[in-house]
């Protein structure tokens, strides 16, 4: 078995064990609360996947997680830690909503790309600030990007309660975007829309660029060892900047996909914590595009299944957060530990062999 396949199998085994462990912990918690765990997990599964509308809701919630998760994976792989997804996502969504509301009379095939581009530019520029500070002044990008989250989110919330507020609305929200900026639904009975297809395409594109092109190779090289890349003639700063800008643009896209896809207007705190959840998605997906896709769908399904479970079983909402936290922590813990399961299991069978080998040595 080659090294890559072996690492892959090890990773899958660790995820299965992590899930089993997480469900065991949650099961104990539910039993303690006097709820039947088996029935609860069945409700969770049913709410996540059974039926068109439930499946649609899961994929709908997964879409921004996949898009944003890709951006985070890219920046982490290049060694620049963009934690500012939340702010970039809000500003991206703000730009898309603003364009969606104020550009009147455009055909949809022009209006939708303009909104998406606007959100990518805003998200990218917001990420450029910590990126530039890091590259030219050496400021820690983790700190600056996290702090900029507050600026971004509160700016958008302020806008929605002042100059961008729909006149006469009770809630602090923007006006509705024009119909020409709304994405089409692709599944009846659910809110699933074309932004999910776009996310799939971007995953494929990301994979191609990152693993099959010159630029992708340089990006990976910078992430592996920036100093070595620089001495071998790669313009390290340029690629770091590129990575964080694209990362911000994808976060922005994650925001606009929600507004244009199904919310159709922006409310204050329209997407709470998504900017942080995408970090969990990126890490659970092992910073690989396909992994991010799977992790995004998994977390989306968990979210949507959890709300159905809450309704059917009457479990308090707070238990849901514990469940999600335990699952994410467990997966991250096991996948980051890099345990060589094949080696362990193989070791049991080949004990004698290795003993004799040890003697020889």
């Amino acid at each position, binding site marked *: 078995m080659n090294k890559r396949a072996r690492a892959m199998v090890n990773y899958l085994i660790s995820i299965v064990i992590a899930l089993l462990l997480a469900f065991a912990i949650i099961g104990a918690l539910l039993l303690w609360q006097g709820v039947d765990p088996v029935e609860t997990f069945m409700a969770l599964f049913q*709410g996540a996947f059974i*039926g068109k*509308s*439930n499946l649609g*809701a899961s994929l709908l919630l997964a879409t921004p997680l996949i898009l944003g998760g890709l951006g985070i994976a890219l920046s982490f792989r290049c060694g620049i830690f963009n934690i500012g997804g939340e702010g970039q996502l809000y500003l991206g969504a703000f730009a898309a909503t603003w364009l969606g509301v104020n550009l009147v009379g455009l055909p*949809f*095939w022009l*209006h*939708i*790309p303009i909104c*998406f*581009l606007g959100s990518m530019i805003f998200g990218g520029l917001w990420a450029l600030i910590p990126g530039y500070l890091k590259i030219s002044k050496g400021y820690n990008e983790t700190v600056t990007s996290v702090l900029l989250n507050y600026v971004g989110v509160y700016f958008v919330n302020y806008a929605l309660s002042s100059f961008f507020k729909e006149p006469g*609305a*009770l*809630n602090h*929200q923007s006006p509705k975007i024009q*119909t020409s900026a*709304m*994405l*089409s*639904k*692709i599944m*009846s*009975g659910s*809110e699933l*829309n*074309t*932004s999910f*297809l*776009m996310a799939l*395409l*971007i995953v494929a*594109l990301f994979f*191609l*660029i990152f693993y099959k*092109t*010159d*630029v992708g190779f340089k990006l990976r090289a910078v992430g592996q060892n920036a100093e070595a890349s620089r001495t071998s003639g790669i313009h390290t700063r340029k690629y770091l900047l590129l990575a964080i800008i694209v990362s911000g643009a994808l976060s922005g896209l994650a925001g606009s996909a929600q507004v244009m896809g*199904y*919310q*159709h207007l922006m*409310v*204050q*705190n*329209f*997407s*709470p914590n998504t900017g942080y959840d995408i970090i969990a998605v990126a890490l659970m997906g092992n910073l690989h595009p396909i992994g991010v896709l799977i992790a995004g769908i998994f977390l989306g399904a968990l979210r*949507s299944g959890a*709300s*159905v479970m*809450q*309704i*059917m079983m*009457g479990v*308090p*909402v707070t238990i849901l957060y514990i469940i999600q936290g335990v699952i994410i922590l467990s997966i991250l813990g096991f996948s980051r530990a890099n345990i060589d399961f094949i080696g362990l299991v193989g070791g049991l069978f080949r004990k004698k062999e290795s003993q004799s080998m040890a003697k020889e040595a």
Partner: protein
Amino acid sequence: MKRKLMALLLAGALAVGLAACSRNVGTEDSAPPASSPTGGTTETTGAKDPSEVKVALVCGGAVNDGGWNASAYEGLQRIEETLGVETAYTEKVAVAEMPQVIRTYARQGFDLIFGHGAEFGEPMSTVAPEFPDTTFVAVNANVEAGNLTGTVFKFGECGYFCGMAAAMVSETGKIGIIPPDDAPNNKADIDTYELGAKAVNPDIEVYTAFTGSWDDLPKAKEASESLISKGCDVLLAMGDAYAVGVYQACENAGIKAIGWVSDQHDLSDAVICSGLQSVGDVYVATAERYLEGTMEQGVQVYGMPDGAQGMSEFYGLTEEQAAEVEAAMQDYLDGKLEIPTLY
């Protein structure tokens, strides 16, 4: 290499464009709702079997907040006990998540869905046309559509009598009110609070401090302290969970407080009386009408004449003062006293 990248970038642009294409379903939800003609009774399908009806409640805050959301939960429990229907609820739902939670209930086959608060008006107007067989009720929201009904209180009634009580108890001639924001529903009671106070003492000064949230306890406490430092000695806590913060500040400063929505004297001895909104009655009445098939279309207004609003016992007032407030309430019911209510 550059050319290859260029090609991929072009493909990226295509990906963005793809989301734009294939829009055959288009804008299903922006089409006007297929509503039945307005006015008169719409649900004339007759009585429904309670064992087949499922009722859901969606709340913005926690159902154990001892105030606004607790009253909805109490209403839901009364519906389950007295009418024998299946119920479920979801609490702490952010405005952005409301449409999805409401849709989830509708998809799970719930027949009657309550949204507990004016903030549910907009999300329910969006979702209601998608589920024509489900009945939506937005409590405290001024909305109506084919299968969507709003219920509102006569906002402004309670504020007036709370203001009277506050002015009677105040020794400094300064009283305060701590509402979350100046949304129309709250504004009506804020205004009549001042009117009621001035009816008792024309020179009284009324201070307002907004918290920006219905359950931010520390912020409410800070707001209370700033009002107290201005010399206010009676505070009306017009919020949900944060009322406790106001009472704590009042206890520390040794001044009086007034409760809101439910009788909150058991939460703190500082509370001299409370303005009551019996949300539970609204829930049970609405569910009964739904089961009987006599639900009327349009916004339903509940006020003091229906017994849905009123005042609690007066704990911190002398008998004459209490009698004076009660006389004013009677005058209002008899039509001798005009209060500018919202509905």
